[in-house]
């Protein structure tokens, strides 16, 4: 029985509910939360090995056979995402323990983090598009609370916007699902893919695909990212890092899944639009990152740039480009979490958000400064760090397909990323120190441990590219040959 597939969803949710009863025992809460996430990481790793051995595996809930029941599907792509998100969550939690403060811990924050992770893992693993909607909602409900928790004025303002935009997004999602169901009469993703392939992707289905595209773009921050820089910078740092690492990536995952599995038949319409959106996202994100002098906003715009960059791979659609997208997605989850934790720590240490008001941090905290430098190099894509292989693969794919404009935009964005992050480095880490030894705040050891661990992950993703590429290539193989996925789900075994 393949019940292991559902564990990354159900264990966090079950534990989250148990934590509600342990509201006043904060130490117990912390221990249970981190143990749970470590357990989920280990389970995901086993799941990855299992998928490697046995190919795509599925779990029919209550034994209802597809296409009638809901099912969870584990293929290499989804399990890689689950594994990465679980590991990143462990380190974000480690950071949260030392910085988040008792006020948040008393208000069920760990429960909501676990619910968020449950929703994220569910979105990655589900094989039913309505179930995808449900898992999105679980994730979003938890994120609404996490944005608003803390009760500051700015949080109220941003959470109102965030909730409103996502409620609208979800209702459009629901409408798109209704259209989809009325045309293909099924909600099972493999079954939809099969029927769309049989009937041909007519204009009606392409329209449905584009409505879904708009919804996922809203969640992923593709062009429609106007809500993102505001709402991602208001919650506590650990939550910001989780959002940066997980939330937009779920949207990107949904986009890749939708347009490789279900609607790949009209690339001259859909993939062209994805390409235009990806290019526009990169340009707008770069403008935001260049214009801002607030460390948190610069980091938030870097998320946007990365989303655009990953989707170049999908827009181009060749095998190496999609492999690059998968690889870069993994890298970006780790690197963005680390970037947000680092800039959050800068704000915590200095009490300032503008780069002009910080200076000379590297003299007070040398290791911290160099880890920031390392993160910057990884995000820019300097070998042998983690961003390099993904960028090379996406670049190679764009050249194969002859998309030179996207190629140029993608690599020009690397320079902008370098410039925006170097701006922080030069003005905040270098220069005369503003913190005297007397008012120097000690850097919490647990936070330092999470920085080092995430930095090591980044180096490992870069140096272990050869081992990781085996998995990535397997994931890509399923993405470019949707028939493997469809056969694995719908064939009678």
């Amino acid at each position, binding site marked *: *029985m393949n*019940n292991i597939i*559902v*564990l990354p969803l*159900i264990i966090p*949710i*079950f534990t989250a*509910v*148990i934590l*509600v*009863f342990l509201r006043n025992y904060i130490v117990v809460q912390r221990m249970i939360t981190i143990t749970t996430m470590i357990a989920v990481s280990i389970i995901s790793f086993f799941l990855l090995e299992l998928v490697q051995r046995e190919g795509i595996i599925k*779990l*029919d*809930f*209550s*034994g209802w056979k597809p296409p009638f029941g809901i099912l*969870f599907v584990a293929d290499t792509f989804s399990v890689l995402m689950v594994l990465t998100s679980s590991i990143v969550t462990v380190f974000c939690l480690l950071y949260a323990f030392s910085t988040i403060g008792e006020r948040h811990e008393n208000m069920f924050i760990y429960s909501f983090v676990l619910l968020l992770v449950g929703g994220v893992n569910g979105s990655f693993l589900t094989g039913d598009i309505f179930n995808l909607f449900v898992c999105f909602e679980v994730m979003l409900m938890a994120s609404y609370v996490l944005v608003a928790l803390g009760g500051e004025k700015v949080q109220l303002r941003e959470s109102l916007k965030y909730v409103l935009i996502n409620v609208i997004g979800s209702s459009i999602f629901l409408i798109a699902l209704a259209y989809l169901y009325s045309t293909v009469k099924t909600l099972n993703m493999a079954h939809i893919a099969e029927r769309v392939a049989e009937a041909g992707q007519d204009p009606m289905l392409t329209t449905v695909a584009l409505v879904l595209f708009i919804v996922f773009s809203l969640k992923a921050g593709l062009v429609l990212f106007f809500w993102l820089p505001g709402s991602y910078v208001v919650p506590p740092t650990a939550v910001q890092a989780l959002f940066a690492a997980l939330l937009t990536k779920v949207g990107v995952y949904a986009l890749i899944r939708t347009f490789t599995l279900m609607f790949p038949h009209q690339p001259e319409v859909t993939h062209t639009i994805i390409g235009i959106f990806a290019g526009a996202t990169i340009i707008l994100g770069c403008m935001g990152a260049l214009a801002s002098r607030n460390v948190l906003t610069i980091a938030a715009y870097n998320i946007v740039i990365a989303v655009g960059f990953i989707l170049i791979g999908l827009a181009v659609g060749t095998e190496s480009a999609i492999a690059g997208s998968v690889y870069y997605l993994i890298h970006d989850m780790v690197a963005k979490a680390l970037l947000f934790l680092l800039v959050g720590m800068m704000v915590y240490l200095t009490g300032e958000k503008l780069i002009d008001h910080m200076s000379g941090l590297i003299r007070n905290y040398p290791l911290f400064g160099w880890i920031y430098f390392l993160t910057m190099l990884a995000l820019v894509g300097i070998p042998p760090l983690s961003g390099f292989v993904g960028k090379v693969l996406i670049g190679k794919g764009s050249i194969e397909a002859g998309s030179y404009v996207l190629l140029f935009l993608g690599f020009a964005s690397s320079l902008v990323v370098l410039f925006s992050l170097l701006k922080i480095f030069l003005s905040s880490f270098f220069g005369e120190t503003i913190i005297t030894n007397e008012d120097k705040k000690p850097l919490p050891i647990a936070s330092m441990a999470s920085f080092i661990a995430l930095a090591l992950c980044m180096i490992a993703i870069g140096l272990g590219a050869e081992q990781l590429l085996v998995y990535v290539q397997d994931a890509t193989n399923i993405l470019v040959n949707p028939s493997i996925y469809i056969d694995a789900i719908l064939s009678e075994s």
Partner: protein
Amino acid sequence: MRINDVILRTVVKVVIFIILTLGVYLFFSGHNAPGGGFIGGLVLASGIILLYVTYDIDTIQKKMPFDFKKVAALGVLIATGTGLGAIYLDVPFLSQTDGHFQFPFIGDKHLTTVTLFEAGVALTVIGTLVTMILSISEDE
């Protein structure tokens, strides 16, 4: 100033039993006929909210000293717990089973595990709804 609500109070004393009975009936008829944990829970919750409206919060809280947030959590715990039970028995997640049992005096009864799941759903709905209404009413 207290409004004169003697009619409401008198009516509620009788009607509340009808509402709660209907809620329980809907809950048990659930898995085969219209009804179920969600709808049963809604009716039960509306009964409880009616009590809160008729009498004041303090009186009801004295007689029903539950933290409704925890009631909701307990509900989710039961519902997901039935799923975990399926994992423990090595059948597909959320599998349900049923059977006919002979009891003394009441005779043959059809018992299902889905009732447990529905009980979880009902508790979640009650807990969530009452918490929502109470939070709104606490607003000054």
